[in-house]
Structures are given as C-alpha cells and as structure tokens.
C-alpha cells in the first residue's frame, strides 16, 4: 500500500528475490540475457513499451520546453482567464490567464527533476542503509534495523512538512523528503536480500580469500542488487510525481516561481465545478506519467527475470 501517494513505495519481495537470484546466476556463470535481448524484451511487452514511450515523451517535452513553449509559461494575464481549448490555446487558459499547455510543457522539467532527484537520493540512502544493515557488526545491524522501522513510521508528508517549515516550500524539500522516505523503504525491502547474498558461497569465498568489506560491497553486493534497485527506483519515480501533487495540494510543493504540474492541479482543483476541463489536463498528464514510470518498472522487472520471459507470462 502506498499511503495515499505520499507514503512509500510498495516493494515486491518476490521480484527482489528473483532478480538477485538471476543476477547472481549471471555473475557466476553464463549470460542468459545479453544487453540487446534485455532491451528487446523490455520493448516486446506492452507495459514495457508504454513505459519507455511515456518516459521518452516526458524527457522530450522537458527538453523542448527549454527552447520552446507556445506562450511564456510564467506570463500571467488575468484578462485572458478561463479560455476554453482552441487552436490558439490548445488546452485553454487558467485562472490567471496562463496558457495551460505551456505550463504543462514547462512543468515537465520540474517533474523530471523531482523524479530523478528523489530517485538519486533514494538510491544513496537505500544503498547506505542496506550496506550498513548487512555488512556491519551485529549490534550495528540491529540498530539500523530499528532505526529503519522508526523512520518508516515517519510519513513522507511530515518529513516534507518539517523541511518546508525550516527551508520554506520548494522543490528541494519535495525531492529530499520523497527521496529519503523511499530510500528507507528500499533499504527495508532489500535488507533480507542483501543479507542473503552476503552469506552466499561466492561472497563467503571472496571474503575468505582476503577481500575487504568495501571490496565485497562494490564487487559483489552492489552489482547483484543493482537490478532490484533500478526497478524499485522506477516505481519510486512514479510515487515521487504523485507525492509532488499531494504536497502541492497541502501548500508544500513548488513555489509560485516554478511551473509545476502538482501546483497547477492544486491551483485549479477548487474550480472543478466551474471549469472542469481546466482541471482535467494536469490530472491527466500526471496520471499518464505515473503510469509510464510504473509500467517501465514492471517492464524492467519482467525483462530482467528469466523465468518470466521463458514462461512467456507478462
């Protein structure tokens, strides 16, 4: 469960296990899936294909908006408020007369920043906690485990709220809050798996042959857990986009000087009874993008899972 979209990603323990299994199998011996087949497998599933297309469109939109938007996304002109969709304003205008399409186009940059930023932080926090929680002395491990449980009880939204109190509402706050929360969750999910790998024969063999802990981490653990993390992070990106929308609704999202989907939705939501079409657009692009990240995650999971591919199930 995701705690209504500002919480944490739901892990999928089975996949975590499978991926690590496959990946370690790949390390140990043959290469069941080369890079090209892996990529092809991703595109061969409808979900993978949609996910890739959606993310490519998002990134392209962000790129295009750097050089071109039909109107200045920040140019408010209340005399032009509430235009319906037309050829001049594809999606109409909002309550202060901005061109909704231009705001959404420019807002895709914010979405990319939030998604990538929080995923990076989640990765760093996740790897750090997971490593500390598996490679260190027993009492440290138990301590980390308890700490993770405590942090999980701290909802993302409160972390964001407290950060916003100290630093003011901003994108950075959203990114850090979402990133840290997801990182903690990923650590919780992958803890068992990392421990399993840490006890596996080849790691034990490596340790026995005199390899240091750091080396074990970089040579064996991280490469093996990487596919799991990538899938998790793709899902995290989806939730980051939703979290930005939720936090914007509560007034802790991007500030007025930054165009953002979540804030546009939050600004327009009261008007659903008066201008329903205007409220539709930001909701729609958020949904399609979140769907894209989710399906990309699913596609990656399936594409890197030999049993799924051999069994032909989707």
């Amino acid at each position: 469960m995701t705690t209504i979209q500002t919480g944490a990603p739901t892990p999928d323990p089975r996949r975590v296990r499978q991926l690590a299994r496959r990946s370690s199998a790949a390390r140990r011996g043959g290469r069941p899936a080369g890079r090209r087949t892996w990529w092809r497998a991703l595109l061969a599933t409808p979900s993978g294909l949609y996910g890739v297309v959606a993310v490519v469109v998002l990134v392209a939109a962000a790129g295009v908006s750097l050089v071109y938007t039909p109107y200045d996304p920040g140019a408010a002109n209340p005399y032009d408020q509430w235009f319906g969709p037309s050829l001049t304003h594809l999606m109409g205008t909002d309550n202060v007369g901005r061109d909704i399409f231009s705001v959404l186009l420019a807002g895709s940059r914010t979405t990319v920043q939030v998604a990538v930023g929080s995923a990076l932080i989640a990765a760093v926090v996740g790897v750090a906690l997971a490593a500390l929680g598996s490679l260190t002395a027993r009492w440290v491990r138990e301590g980390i485990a308890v700490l993770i449980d405590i942090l999980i009880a701290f909802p993302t939204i409160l972390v964001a709220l407290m950060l916003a109190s100290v630093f003011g509402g901003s994108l950075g706050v959203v990114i850090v809050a979402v990133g840290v929360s997801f990182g903690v969750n990923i650590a919780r999910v992958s803890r068992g798996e990392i421990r399993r790998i840490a006890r596996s024969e080849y790691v034990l063999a490596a340790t026995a042959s005199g390899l240091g802990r750091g080396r074990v981490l970089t040579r064996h653990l991280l490469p093996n857990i990487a596919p799991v993390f990538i899938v998790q992070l793709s899902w995290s990106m989806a939730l980051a986009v939703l979290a930005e929308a939720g936090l914007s609704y509560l007034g802790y999202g991007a500030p007025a000087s930054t165009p953002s989907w979540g804030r546009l939705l939050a600004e327009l939501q009261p008007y659903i009874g008066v201008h329903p079409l205007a409220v539709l657009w930001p909701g729609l692009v958020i949904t399609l993008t979140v769907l894209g990240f989710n399906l990309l995650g699913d596609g990656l999971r399936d594409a890197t899972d030999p049993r799924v591919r051999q069994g032909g199930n989707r």
Partner: protein
Amino acid sequence: MRSPRILAAAGTVAAAALVLTACTPGGGSSESGSPDADATVNVGLVLEPTDLDIRTTDGIALDQVLIDNVYEGLVSRTAAGEIVDTIAKSHEVSDDGLTYTFDLNDGVTFQNGDEVTADDVVWSISQVKDDEGMQGHTDLANVTSITATDDDTVTLALSAPDSNLLWNLAGRAGLVLDEAATNDLSTTAVGTGPYTLKSWKQGDSLTLERNDDYWGEKARVKSVVFRYITDANAGINAMLAGDLDVQTAVDANLATQFDGNADIEIARGKTTDKYTLAFNNKVAPLNDMRVRQAIRMAIDHAAVVKAVGGAAVEQGGPIPELDPGYEDLTDVAPYDPTKAKELLAEAGQSNLTLDLTIPSFYGTSVATLLVSELEKVGITLNVKSVEFATWLNDVYTNKDFQLSYVDHAESRDFGNWANPDYYFGFDNADVQRLYQESVAAADPETAAAKLKEAARIVSEQAGADWLYNAVTLTAVRQGVTGFPTDSTSTRLDLGELAVQE
C-alpha cells in the same frame, strides 16, 4: 509607546485560504413568515481559532465568533464603524478627553447567573491594563486609573487624550468577564452575550446556543454551528448540498456555481482586509524609494482584482474605505511599467532579484501574477512559501525578509506606519507626528483628517503596495435573515440572525 496593534494574516496557522469579512446587517432575502425560534443555523467559516482564550490568544478567528455573541464589552462597534453602548447604558467623555465615564445597564447578568457589577468591569479592564501578556494590553497605554465611582458607574482616567480608546474598548481590551468565574478560558467561555458557547470540536466546529436568560433582546435562533472548512470547493459543495445555511468568504471565481439556484443568494460586503505587499523599508535595495515605487508601478492592480474574481477594489494607500481617514490614492502610483523600468535604472537596479515570503495558506495565484508582472520590468521574484508560524518568526519578529504578502485584516490599524519597529520598518517623522496628533485629537473629524494626511505620505513614499482591498461574498440560504455581510472575518454579530419558516 504604542506597540503594534494589528492583525496581520488572518489568525490561525493551519488554515488554508483567506478570510474576508464584513458586517452590514441583512444578507439573505427577507421572506415574510414567522421566525423559527427553534432553528439551527450552520455557518461555514475558513479559519479556526487555535484556542478560545480571549485574554491571551491572538487571532481574528476568535474575535469573529466570540465577541458580541458570547462576550460583550462596555461598548461595541457597528458595521458602519460607529460606537454604541452595550453593557454601558451611556458614556461620557470629558471636554479635555481625559475622563471617560460609563453608566452601566441594570440587570446585566453573566451566563453563569452572576450579576454584572461595576467591580467586575473594573477587574476586567484592570486585568488587561496590568498584565502585559494579555491581548489589548497596549490599547490601554494612556489609561491611568479604572475605578468604580458607584455601583453603576465606572470611570477611566487618562494621562493623555486617546481618540482610539472607545474603539479599542469595543475590542479585546474592554470585554467584561466574571471575576468570580473559575472556568478554563481555553475551551470554555462565560460572558454576558446573547449566545453561550456550547461546544468546540477542535478541527471541525464550534457551537453557540441561545442564552435564554440574556439581559437584552434575546437571540432569534436556538443555535448556531460554525463549521471550519478549509477546502474552498468543499465549502461550496456543502452549501449546495444543504449542509450549510451560510457560507462566508466565498471564492468569487466559484460563486457562479450558485447561479440559477433560487435558494441561495450571494451578498457582497465591504471589508478592511488589506492584502499588503510589504517592503522591508530598512534594507537595501528596498530602502531606496525609487525601487519601491517601481515595484508599485509595475503591478497592474486591475489585473490583480480580475485574478481574484473581481471580489476586490483597488487600494492606493494604507487606509481602506471603511476606516476613518480614507481617501482614494490609486493615482499615486498608477500602473506604468515603462516608468517603473526608468526608476529602476535610475536607482541602478536594472537586474534585480527579490525574495517574497508568503504564508502557504494564501494559495499561489496572486504570487504567480506578481512574478509575471515584476518580470516584465526586469525584477526576478523568488517566492518563498512558508507556514504562518515561520512567517511570524522570520518576517514579523526577526524582520528577515525583502517582500512579504499577507492580509492585514484588522480595521483601524494605521498605527503600524507610525511604529518604526513594526516589521514594515517604515520610519517617517511626519507620519509619526500626524498619527500622534490624530490620537490626541479631541474630535473624530480632526483625527480622520490627520490620518488622511499621514496615509498620503505613506503611499507617496511607497511604504508598501496594497494589492487590493477585498470584497467579501457571503452565500445565504433563502429564509435566513440578519446575517452580517460586511467585514465578516473580524466580527460576526449574530444578534439579528433569524430563520423564517
């Protein structure tokens, strides 16, 4: 020294959106029929008090529901800004303006049955006078003694004339409480008003009930339930679904949802809500008058009014129409981006970046517009959206800001401009002198004339920009009469409220 006497951002912190207010009696249609004495009226409000302690807790959300309804003072304010006697039967001010004599009504009782004595009045006002932790303490700065001259008379002696005193006594400073009562002011209230406080469900609602033993004209409805609804859309829906009989502070952009609904009428009311873009007048680059003027001229105030759905009037100076000393000052800094750019160039600030601190519950529409307007003259605006508690700390207390945006809802708050320690940091000797003269003036006309003169200086010096003076919309269900519609965010006197059957 008078300390800042003003209400900035409407009260409680967690609330979203803003509050507007008003007080002309009579919203709603007058349908003939007999009043329903057993009626319950559900009223939608936005901002909830953090606490009910009328003595120590600031916030117009508290004044709004409790003053005039549960608590009463010697005198009270009418919607038109006049002072009328309440617990006092009559009052008299000596010619030198140094002695105020209040003759008390007979038979006034507290809601616990105790009779109101002159000693209660003296105790109540002395409490505020003596304890600097109490709200309204600084309003009594000129008062030197409060005495009961006989069982029905209370006399206040002043060290210097104070033309604001009666107005202030109609606020927190003059409320009469029972010396013998021991109730917890945080969650309960014992006053003399026409309604008793029945219950407060924090985060949800506050219920008043008719005081059947009221000493004056009794309330016409059995109970009033204030429901605190922060989501604008939820308020509209509650009204449409019949969960509310009155919705205050309706977002003008949403009011069209009531169109064609014969059951609901929208009343427009005036307010003293001044949506103020404050400048930190003490720090560079805003200590340069040309920069401040440029900002004022860069903003198209008609566009701001349009953005808030037309529920506003342009305001060119610190005093709104409802307050004494008002004058239309909108031509002091007319919209002129070209001139604004020239002023900036003259000041050597052609590529300026400024921070705007804004409490998060105000929404972002106006901020978006400001960013856009200022960009046109070459000013980059960074918007910092913060919690109200953070605003209080950073802007109000520590004065660590460049631009700030809050609603100064309180009426007659010009004194802030005469106080260089207020967060505006506005320090002008002429304004301070004129304000002192206004306070000391014996008659209201002179007082208002002095304020008018001072207000013009503040506007010409571009002490701040007044984005708009809000007009408040109140949606009232057919059959509900006597609900105030002016300044509803600061006072809601429900003495006339009735429901026709």
